[in-house]
């Protein structure tokens, strides 16, 4: 099942508005109806030991009727904080988990990724008639501005 014309348009619009070239996987991730949307070289948080690389998220085949998955990923599984977070006393990134097979079928192949649980659409529910992938993207990268122990 290739991505719909609507989905391709949404990704094109995201690229145009974000200034980053986003790609969409040709098929859904096996076992799901989610396509991987990612850009190859996006800046991360400067406090990370890896400061740039792939960044993306997964979107249902029926976006925008269905909301995007409530998370995003970076393909930098070894990334840590340069200075440990004093509250958690840890150099691990907060609320982040390593996932295998998360981006299968995309240009990233079977690379492991770090998934950020962000719950960005909990307080402001996704509105299929109003929100776009660009809104999802801006919500996602706001994670890089928050304290690591939020």
């Amino acid at each position: 099942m290739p991505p719909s014309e609507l989905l391709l348009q949404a990704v094109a619009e995201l690229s145009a508005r974000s200034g980053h070239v986003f790609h969409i996987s040709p098929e859904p991730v096996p076992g799901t109806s989610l396509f991987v949307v990612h850009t190859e070289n996006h800046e991360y948080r400067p406090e990370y030991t890896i400061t740039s690389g792939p960044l993306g998220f997964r979107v249902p085949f029926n976006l925008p009727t269905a909301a995007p998955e409530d998370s995003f990923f970076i393909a930098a599984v070894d990334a840590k904080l340069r200075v440990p977070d004093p509250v958690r006393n840890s150099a691990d990134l907060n609320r982040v988990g390593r996932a295998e097979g998360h981006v299968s079928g995309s240009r990233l192949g079977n690379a492991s990724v770090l998934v950020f649980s962000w719950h960005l659409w909990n307080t402001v529910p996704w509105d299929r008639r109003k929100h776009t992938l660009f809104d999802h993207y801006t919500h996602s990268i706001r994670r890089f501005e928050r304290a690591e122990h939020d």
Partner: protein
Amino acid sequence: MHSQSVSLITSRLGDETHIAADADTWREVCTKLTAAAPDEACCFLLTRPSRGITRTTVILREIIWPKPGDVQATPGSLELSADYISRAIDAAIDAGAMVGLCLVHTHPKSEKFGEGIARFSSRDDWYENRLFPTITLDRPGAISASVVIGSAGDVDARIWWRERGECVTQDVQAIRAVGPELTIIETPSSPWKDHPDPAVMDRSTRLWGGEGRRRLQNLRIGIAGAGGTGSLTIFGLATMGVGKLLVWDKDIAKKQNRHRTAGITSDQIGKPKVTAMKVMAESVATAEPFIIEVYEDWATTAEALTRLKDCDLIFCCIDNFAARVPLNDLAYAHLIPTIDMASWVHADRNQQIDALMTHAHVWSPGIPCAWCRETISSHILMREAQGTQRGIEDRIPYGLPLEETDGVEPSVLPLNMLGVSLALIEFMQVALKITTRTPNDLKFFLPEWELDESDRPARQACDCILNVAMGDTLVINPVMME
């Protein structure tokens, strides 16, 4: 001076033609126009097309009432001012290329003419043959219409459109007024026939009368899905005397379906489910004639969504949320009442049932839709799309294992039967008006052991209010399922 007969140029847009309006709009038009009796009265409405495979429906939406002085009326005549006609045409043009106009007028009872008969007079022919070439000029995407209402509430109607440079017309067979209930008013061109042997339906006819029996015999009902609930729905409708069924399902009958699906006999294993449904339905059908068309495909493809516009009523018997989105839209935009049903069982790790639900929900103007009821939401659709990775965002940050599941919940015949029974009771109300009110959504659930009706109101500015009667001007995206 206007009584000379004219020959209208007739053509065909489809085997069947209907006019449809949401019930409130139709009631308002009828009430206000008939109140002018013994004078005739009229108004324009904006129209939108709803093009199926065999049926073309012209949907009425916004009413454009005449202003004082716009219409000169007597018990036997109407004169419309040029200003009123221009205002109506401008409104149609402003509303989009597919928007046309319908002229509705009355033939009231009067001392001079007696009962008002709902037939277009030669004067009507003469007048409309001058009016509609102007209304349809340079508007090839729009279909217009005219309706005459008699003093007994009877109707006649026809549609008008532009074809190869000429304004042509076709008779309309029925007007559907659609709200919580479905009212079908036959015109003199109606092809409906009564059951040839009504005595065989005596016990049912005692509930819904001869008119109800005639309606069942002639309704065309679409059934999306022929699984646990769909098969029982097909069995029920065929047994009750519905004359025309259209069924969609792409699945092949498996031995695992037999314990909860009606009609899948051992010799049907390996064949399309819809083939088994056709055999079963034809063996129990009581309508005469009985026609069942089956389609080995999903009901949400572009072709199926077009064919569903031929239906008077739809049963949504599918087991996923994504496919409910276009069917929900279709119900409101194309004025086709749809009865959605679903059963759901959740068992804990010890295989003890901790939650169980079955419900039947009418989607039709005046009743909150699946989005209002939260049967579907953007979040639910996203979770469904996650498939075997459902809930990953909740588990992975905490290092919890991603529990693999095939996403298939338990399903049992009694629960499906209960859901279908609720749906068929709602069907009797929507199609046959067995009582005074259509329930919104009937739900049975555990652990409460309760049968309840949802009292959720429609959400503000929901599509089930904004998109009512939008017809083909609303884009409905097909859903292609694996």
